[in-house]
């Protein structure tokens, strides 16, 4: 295993501690139970947003704690949902009286642990579940779709509404709208390596890719030969457009997300391919985000998210944000 690591047991603790030191102007890191919270407590009466999930997707979610986005993030072990005591402690720490909204990705471990955390927390709270991954079809035979990169967009946009005095109900409603308006699909060229495992999660041929991969290296739609970027991007967009069916006059945010091991140059090339394909289909791209935001350790690959935007969404996307990993306007 090729990682900067001292020993597996301390991997997360050490990384979180370093994160805390590097961004001590924005956040605090609490260990045991571990959660990241804003350096400056949120103002009274603002709804608090808490997200979390297994580690290995950095900068999600700890990198999104700060003004205009999350109030706290609860990191689990690598690819394991965090535990209820983390959510409870984080909620108690950040709630300013207006209630807590939990933002949860749709995995059974996350759902169950957040539920238990919510039950253990005595204050007013509610949750939203993101499930933007169109790779795996929604059907009566499954628990639904996975929550992946659009979670970043939900956190940014709802974070802004919360900052602008949105109520718990309004925040939940906006979050659900953003989630419903978003579709994502990813592809992986290489596997990731969970530190505890010490070896790659899956084997993949030198000329193969996993189409529709999950952010934990879970298998996707199919294993295929690598194709030119434009073909890959075209196939991803087809799946997303099938699902979202944006109107011609609708504005969209195009989000190209790296899985961790793919250089920016390639992500921008994917962005360009996507722009061209969307333009040829008459789909407007109004906002953009390109970079590593919802990763899968060192996996090489990328996901594309399309978000249909109305004026409310656009306004909250543009508003100032000041976190370790996303910052503008302040």
């Amino acid at each position, binding site marked *: 295993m090729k990682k900067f690591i001292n020993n597996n047991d301390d991997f997360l603790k050490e990384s979180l501690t370093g994160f805390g030191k590097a961004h001590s102007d924005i956040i605090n890191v609490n260990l045991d139970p571990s959660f990241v919270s804003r350096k400056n407590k949120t103002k009274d009466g603002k709804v608090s947003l808490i997200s979390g999930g297994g580690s290995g997707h950095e900068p999600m979610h700890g990198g999104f704690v700060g003004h205009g986005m999350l109030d706290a993030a609860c990191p689990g072990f*690598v*690819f*394991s*949902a965090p535990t209820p005591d983390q959510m409870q402690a984080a909620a108690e720490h950040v709630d300013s009286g207006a209630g807590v909204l939990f933002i949860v990705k749709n995995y059974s471990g996350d759902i169950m642990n957040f539920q238990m955390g919510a039950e253990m927390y005595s204050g007013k709270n509610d949750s939203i579940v993101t499930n933007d991954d169109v790779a795996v079809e929604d059907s009566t*035979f*499954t628990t639904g779709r996975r929550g992946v990169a659009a979670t970043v967009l939900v956190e940014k946009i709802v974070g802004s509404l919360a900052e602008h005095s949105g109520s718990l109900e309004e925040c939940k409603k906006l979050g659900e709208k953003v989630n419903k308006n978003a579709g994502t699909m990813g592809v992986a060229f290489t596997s990731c390596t*969970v530190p505890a495992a010490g070896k790659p*999660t899956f084997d993949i041929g030198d000329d193969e890719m996993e189409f529709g991969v999950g952010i934990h290296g*879970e298998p996707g739609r199919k294993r295929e030969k690598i194709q030119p970027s434009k073909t890959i991007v075209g196939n991803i967009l087809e799946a997303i457009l099938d699902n979202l069916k944006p109107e011609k006059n609708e504005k969209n945010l195009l989000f190209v997300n790296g899985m961790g091991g793919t250089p920016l140059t390639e992500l921008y090339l994917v962005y360009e391919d996507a722009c061209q394909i969307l333009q040829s289909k008459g789909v407007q791209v109004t906002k953009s985000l390109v970079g590593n935001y919802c990763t899968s350790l060192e996996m090489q690959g990328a996901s594309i998210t399309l978000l249909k935007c109305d004026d409310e969404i656009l306004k909250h996307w543009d508003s100032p944000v000041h976190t370790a990993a996303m910052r503008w306007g302040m």
Partner: protein
Amino acid sequence: MSVSFLISQAKGIQKVIDENSAEIEVLDQKIGDGDHIFNIQRGLKLVVELEDSIKDLPLAKALNMIAMKVLSGIGGSSGALFGTFFMTMAKSPDLDKDVDFNKACEMIISGIKAMKERGKADVGEKTMMDVLIPVSEKLNELKNESEFKSGLNEVIKIAEERMLSTKDMLATKGRASFLGERAKGHIDPGARSSQLIIDTICKSVINN
């Protein structure tokens, strides 16, 4: 059931899980996210390490400490589910009285029932519940029998059959549910670890 019984079971289970860790690891890599074995091993280690702090405590208190450890130390689906199991066990009535086989069965049955509610998974959905629900039903039959040891052999058999039965199921709960047809052909990792746990406990009870 006593605190020392719990501790010795945890140690026994830890040994068996460690022996089968490579297999379980691969199962969650095939149809999940690969962390199940580490979650289970971390949980067992934490419980075994509790020995000194709980060995002289009353059963209810000990179960409660185990529940908190499991709940806060594992994470993932298994952490929530096994945490729920122990929390429910800890809340059983009359734990200050002697816990005989009948009472132990009732506690386990209620623990599994709570897991079922927490995870909303029933038999046939390719999860650990495929093992645990039939085991719980069998325990319900056995709990009043005095010659329960032979019954436990049947529990062992049921657990194994049901574990194997997950192989050809489509998953509808947990991470494997995202795979559709591709989940077929692989045993569910949680079903395998649960079966090993059941197997270890039953054999230990039978042999004592």
